[in-house]
C-alpha cells in the first residue's frame, strides 16, 4: 500500500506492506538511531515522534503514519546534542543502545513540561529502560541540563 509520510521534515511516498511496523519503516529509510530492544512495548528504545507525540515505533504500523509526520533522533540532532553533552559529562551514556529512545523522550518531556521535578522526570521516563547506568547518571545529566537552562534564562 502507498503511504505518504513526512520523515524528519522530508515528505515522501512509499509502498509498504500493510503489516509493516513503523520501526522497520524508519530503519529502512536510514533512521538507524531507532533501536529494537524488545517485542513487547516494554523498553522505550524505539521511541519516535508521530506528529510530535512520542510513540513506541515497534507498536505502531507504518500505515498509521500515513499523512503524518515522523521524527527520529536523526531529525533532532541539534536539540539532542545540547542535552546529550550533560549526559556525556556523567559517563552515563554507557553502551549507548538505549540512548536514542531516552534522548527522544527527554526532548518530548521538556517540550511538555520545561521545568520538571525529579519525580516528574522519573515518572515520564519510567518506560525507558537502561541496564547499564542504574539511571542515576542519566538523572544527574538531566538535572544539570535543567540547571544550566535556568541560569541561562535568568541572564
Amino acid at each position, binding site marked *: 500500500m502507498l503511504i505518504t509520510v513526512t520523515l524528519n521534515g522530508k515528505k515522501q511516498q512509499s509502498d509498504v506492506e500493510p503489516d509493516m511496523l513503523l520501526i522497520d519503516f524508519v530503519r529502512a529509510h536510514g533512521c*538507524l*538511531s*531507532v*533501536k529494537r*530492544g*524488545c*517485542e*513487547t512495548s*516494554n*523498553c522505550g*528504545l524505539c521511541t519516535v515522534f508521530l506528529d510530535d507525540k512520542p510513540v513506541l515505533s515497534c507498536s505502531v504500523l507504518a500505515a498509521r503514519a500515513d499523512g503524518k509526520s515522523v521524527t*527520529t*533522533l*536523526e531529525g533532532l*540532532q541539534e536539540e*539532542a*546534542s545540547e542535552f*546529550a*553533552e550533560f*549526559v*556525556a*559529562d*556523567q*559517563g*552515563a*551514556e*554507557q*553502551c*549507548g*543502545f*538505549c*540512548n*536514542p529512545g531516552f*534522548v527522544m523522550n527527554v526532548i518530548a518531556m521538556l517540550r511538555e513540561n520545561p521545568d520538571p521535578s525529579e519525580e516528574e522526570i*522519573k*515518572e515520564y*521516563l*519510567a*518506560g*525507558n*529502560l*537502561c*541496564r*547499564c*547506568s*542504574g*539511571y*542515576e*547518571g*542519566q*538523572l544527574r545529566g538531566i538535572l544539570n541540563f535543567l540547571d544550566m537552562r535556568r541560569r541561562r534564562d535568568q541572564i
Partner: protein
Amino acid sequence: MKTVNKGVRKKDAMQLLTGKPVYTNDLAPAECLIVKLLRSPHANAVIEDINTDIAMKVKGIEAIYTWRDIPEGQMRFTCAGQTYPEPSPYDRLILDKHVRFVGDVVAIVAGENEKCVDKAISLIKVKYKVLTPLLDFTLAKDNEILVHPEDNWESLCPVGADNKRNLCAHDESSSGDIDKTLSECDIVIDRTYHTKAVQQTMMETFRTFCTIDMYGRLNVVSSTQIVFHCRRIIANALGIPKTMVRVSKPRIGGGFGAKQTSISEIYPAFVTWHTKKPSKILFSREESMTASTPRHEMQLHVRLGAMRDGRIRGIDLYTLSNTGAYGEHGPTTVGLSGHKSIPLYGSAESFRFISDVVYTNRMSAGAYRGYGATQGLFAVESAVNELAAELGMDPIALRELNITREGEVMPAYYSQMNTSCALDRCLERVKRMINWDEKYPCRDMGNGKVRSVGMAMAMQGSGISGVDVGSATLRLNETGFYTLNIGAADMGTGCDTILAQIAAEVLECDIEDINVYGADTDVSPYDSGSYASSTTYVTGKATEMCALELRSRICELGASMLGVERDKAEFDGRAVFVSDEPEKRVELFDIATASMCGNNIALAVTKTHSSEISPPPFMVGAAEVEIDKETGEIEVVDYYAAVDCGTTINPNLARVQAEGGILQGIGMALTENITYNENGRVLENSLMQYKIPTRVDIGHIHVEFESSYENEGPFGAKSIGEVVINTPPPAIADAVYNAVGKRFYELPITPEQIANAENKFE
C-alpha cells in the same frame, strides 16, 4: 596526574547519545540473508525424523540446515569464551540429533527476508522421540537420565567432569581442619541458600553478521566481548582452519558477561561459509530470555563457626551449581562462589570449599557480572549477618573484627597476599554515609510502613591470574598524534577511553591526541577479551608499559636528530630536548615527520602483559528499605556504597559502573527470576514477565570511593566492573529481616513472600 583519575568524557559518548549507526545491525549489508532458528519445544528429545522439503519450496529460502548437515566425526566444542584449553567441556554441536532444553536448536533457516524464513520454519516437520527431562538440579548428580550420554563429549581440563554422572565439574579445597574448628566454636550458623538463574538483559540482544572477504575468508562482525576466543569457537564449530576466520566487533549494546559466550555467531557463520553469501542473525528478546546464557542457579550450604566474642574461626561451604544443558563457564563460575567470599574473613583459621556443577535439561547458564561470587557472597554474607543477630552484635562491628587486611595472606584466595585493601575504610565510610547507628536496625514510620537497613561486603578479582593476557599497540603518526590498538572490547564500559587516558598520561599528551581502535582479530594485538574484571588492570598495565616503551623510542629518534646520545635526551610530551641544554630541542611534529622519511627506528610498539596475581577490589554496601506492613511491598529508598577499586582511572565511569551494577544486584534481590513450567519451558520470556528495575523502582544510589593503591596495576588501579553487583542481595535480605523478623534464604524476595511470612513485624 593530568589525565588519569579525571572524569573525562567517553571518546564515543556523543556519537552514542546522538544515535549514530555504530552497532552490528546498523552496519550489516542490506543484502544479508536473514538467519533464524527452529528451536525444540521439548526439554529432552531425540530427533527421529526431520523433513524440510516443503519448507525449502518457500520463495526466497536459500538454505535449511539440520543435524544431517554436520559431518560425522565433527568434534564437539564449547561456546564459552575462555583461554584454551577451556575449562568448559566440549559438549556442543551446531546442530545435534539430541536436543537438551526447550529452545535448543533444531534447524538453521536462511532466506531473503524475515517473512519467508518465518514461513519456512513453520513448515519444517520434525518427529521427536520425547525423553523424560531432568529438571531438578538437586537430583541431577548420578541421575539415570543423562543430559550428555554421548561418547564424543570431552573435557579438556582436569575439572572433575564426568558426563556419565551429569557432572560438569567437581572441586575441593581447604586449609586447616574445618571439622575440628567448627566443633570448638561457641556457635555455628548452618544454613542453605538458593540463588536463581537471572538474565544479563543487556539492551542489545545477541547479533552477528558474516560476509566472505576478498581473500575468501569468513568475516564475522559481532556484538562480542571476546573476538579472539570467538575466532577459535567458530573455527571449532565449523571444522574449518582458524586462518579462515576474522572476527571484529563494532560498538556493543551491553554485555555483562552474556557476550563472553558465542551465542549467536556460529549460526550465520555456518550459513555464510556454506552459501558464500552475507547473512545475519538478530536474536529476538524472547530468544535472549529463553535460549541464552544466564547466571548459574546455585544452592549453597554454609557452616559458619564463631566464638561468643565475635571471632569467626571457620567457614565450610558446599556449592551445587546448575549449568543447564551445556557447560559454558560451569567449572569456573562455581569456584568464585567460595574463593571470592570466604577470603573476606581473614580471621578464619580454617575453611573448606567443595563444589559440584551439574547438567540439567534447562537453558544453559553462562557468565554474568559477578560470575559465581555474587551467589557465594549472598550465602556467606547472609550467614555472617545472621551470626551478628545471634550474637547480638552490630553487623559492621562484627566485620571490623574479622575482615582481611592489607598485607595478610588470604588462604582461600589461592593463598595470595592481600596487596591493596581499603575494606576497613569502606566499612567506616558506609557506616557514616547511611547514618547507620541511627537507622539500624529499623524504624516504624507510623504510616503502616517500616524502614530498615542492612549491609554486606564484597570482593572480586582483577583478571584471571597467570591466564589473562592484555596487549596494546601504540603508534606515532604524522603531526604527532597516536593510534592505540587493542583487543579488549569496549562494551559501553569505556575501556577505549580509560586505556587512552593511561597512554595519554604516560605520553604527556591530550586524550584527543590518541585514536583508539579495537577489536579485530586481524589487526589487534592479542587480548583474552573483556571479562573477569581484567581490562583496566591487565590491558591497562600493558598500555602503560607500551606507552613507556614508545616514549623511549621517541626519545631515541629525537636524540639522534639532535646528534646526542639517547641518555642525554629527554621527552616532555611535546619535544625531545638535550637534558643539559633544554633550548636544543626537536618538536614531536618533526620527530613524527622524520619517522616517515629515511628512518630505521620503528615508532610503533606492542606490549603484552599478564599478571601473576589478581588483586581483589573490595566494597561495602548498605541498603535502606521501606516495607509496607500490609502488602509486603518493598522499595529500596537509598543504597549506599563505598568501593575500593584502587585508583579510579576515570571516576565518572567508575561511578556509573557502580551505580549500574548495584541496580542489577537490586533486581536480582527483589524482582528478577527465571522459572520453568513442569515441561521445562521458561515462563519469563519477555520484559513483560522478567522484571528489571525501572527508574521508579529505586530511590537513590550513593557511591563513594575509598581507594587503596595496587602496585601491580596501572597507576594503582584494580578492577570495578563486577564487584559492584554483589552486595545488594545479602544487604537487602538482612534489611528485610531487620524489618520483618523473618530471614529469607532464597532470591528474589517478593512482596508476596513478605506478606505471607508468619509472625511478621513482631
